[in-house]
């Protein structure tokens, strides 16, 4: 006996009515259904009976399924990479991801240290040429030594040809995650901003354009040190994921020149940092739009930036700084060297 062919929505409505009734009222309803359609009445009766325990059954099953202790956690054990070996590493849990790949916690067996491994998306690692390029780019990046720049220990590939970066495992929070709990006060915003400027200046000094400054690529350790991550990888993403001139990065942080397909230099990063500072102060992005096209139009229009009313406690001079960072012409943007001098409170 089952519900097929009986008209499910009719059953649904009847069941809903009947389960709210008790005693004689329910019996009356069942009797009136029985008179018209005995089969439906039998179905309804057996479902009502099962319904008495069904809710409690599903609650218990769900609780048992999702509230076990760590060792019993099925979700932990089904991660295909969990517990596997990659080079000198044993892979632990997934800790994050970005447009450029997924990041795992991993134990370096010889050093007995926890590192972070960033695996490039599978499709990016397709051709040998791309792999060579990736390794070259990353080796270049790994030369930047600065406290505000994320360190890179090694660039390598797995046995099945997946590329990965080995990095220190920074205990901290990304700006992206931090911004989920809302905007921040000016002091805190300027601390993030100032340290990011110092790190970015070091990256630029090494002749590298970051090209993908976003809150997801800025991390603050528990010791309060801001690290700029993933520099040099965005260029690779153009190589591997882009087609023609179509930009595929994170559009809200892209400079107008990048969106317009013009020549891009290090000043594109300064624009992106401006967007980040705006977002820290206002908790929103400077060029909103429902669609990618609307956002793009807002950025490349070159009109003066519309600044929302100042949140309480934000110094007016900060608005000027944000405006200059978000200058349409790269030449009008401030230089990092000037920014890394003491900033207003």
């Amino acid at each position: 006996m089952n519900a097929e062919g009986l008209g499910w929505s009719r059953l649904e409505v009847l069941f809903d009515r009947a389960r709210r009734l008790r005693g004689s009222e329910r019996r009356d309803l069942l009797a009136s259904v029985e008179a018209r359609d005995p089969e439906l009445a039998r179905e309804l009766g057996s479902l009502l009976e099962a319904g008495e325990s069904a809710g409690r059954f599903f609650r218990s099953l769900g609780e048992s399924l999702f509230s076990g202790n760590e060792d019993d956690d099925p979700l932990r054990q089904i991660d295909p990479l969990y517990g596997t070996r990659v080079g000198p590493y044993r892979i632990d849990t997934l800790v994050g991801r970005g447009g450029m790949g997924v990041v795992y916690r991993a134990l370096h067996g010889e050093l007995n240290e926890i590192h972070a491994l960033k695996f490039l998306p599978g499709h990016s690692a397709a051709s040998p040429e791309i792999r060579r390029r990736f390794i070259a780019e990353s080796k270049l990046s790994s030369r930047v030594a600065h406290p505000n720049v994320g360190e890179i220990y090694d660039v390598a590939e797995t046995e099945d040809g997946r590329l990965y970066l080995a990095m220190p495992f920074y205990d901290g929070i990304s700006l992206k995650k931090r911004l989920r709990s809302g905007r921040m006060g000016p002091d805190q915003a300027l601390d993030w901003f100032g340290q990011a400027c110092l790190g970015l200046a070091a990256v630029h000094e090494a002749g590298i354009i970051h090209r993908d400054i976003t809150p997801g690529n800025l991390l603050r350790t528990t010791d309060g040190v801001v690290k700029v991550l993933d520099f040099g990888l965005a260029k690779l993403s153009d190589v591997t994921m882009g087609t023609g001139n179509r930009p595929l990065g994170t559009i809200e942080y892209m400079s107008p020149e990048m969106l317009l397909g013009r020549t891009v230099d290090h000043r594109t990063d300064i624009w992106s940092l401006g967007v980040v500072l705006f977002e820290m102060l206002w908790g929103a992005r400077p060029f909103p739009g429902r669609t990618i096209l609307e956002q793009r139009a807002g950025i490349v229009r070159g009109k003066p930036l519309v600044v929302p009313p100042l949140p309480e406690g934000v110094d007016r001079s900060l608005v000027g700084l944000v405006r200059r960072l978000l200058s349409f012409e790269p030449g009008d943007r401030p230089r990092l060297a000037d920014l890394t001098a003491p900033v207003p409170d």
Partner: protein
Amino acid sequence: MSPDEVPDLLARVREGDREALNRLVPLVFDELEQLARAQRRRWRGTVSAHTASLVNEAYLRLAGQESPQWKDRVHFMAVAATAMRQILIDHARRRGAKKRGGDVLRVSFDELEGFIGTPMAEIETRDEVLILLDDCLGRLAEASPRQVQIVECRFFAGMSIPETAEALGISPATVKRGWALAQAWLYREMQDETA
């Protein structure tokens, strides 16, 4: 990354743009994470650190899906709920198959009843119950695919009634009715199977 990109990317995915799919999955990753957290909160009042591995699995599954039927952003939540069901059932089947070397071992009626009010059952029993539930969901799909979606959202993804309503594009009252009937129907089928 912005969720605002999702509609554009979905349009491209529907036109068969493989690259757009690769771009889309990271964008909706946060929704998967949200779902995982909701599920955890619902069942034990806390958020587990291990939601990460669930999200990762769902990510891989969705990334490997050749022609996703994602109509829009909220529809994606329903797709994610289906992915979660697959993850949990696959796991139960895999572990079960390893344990009993391929022999079909069915859960008993008493074991099924034992779940009522006592969530701490043996893992093996729980796996068997899940597999049985999955079989019954397959039959329910023939009668009413929408009921199955409701179960996936409510049970496997831990969504509330309003969230489920939004994800499936139906009214909360319909979700409430459907969820009550689906539970009764599935429980009765499972009882019949074990009796």
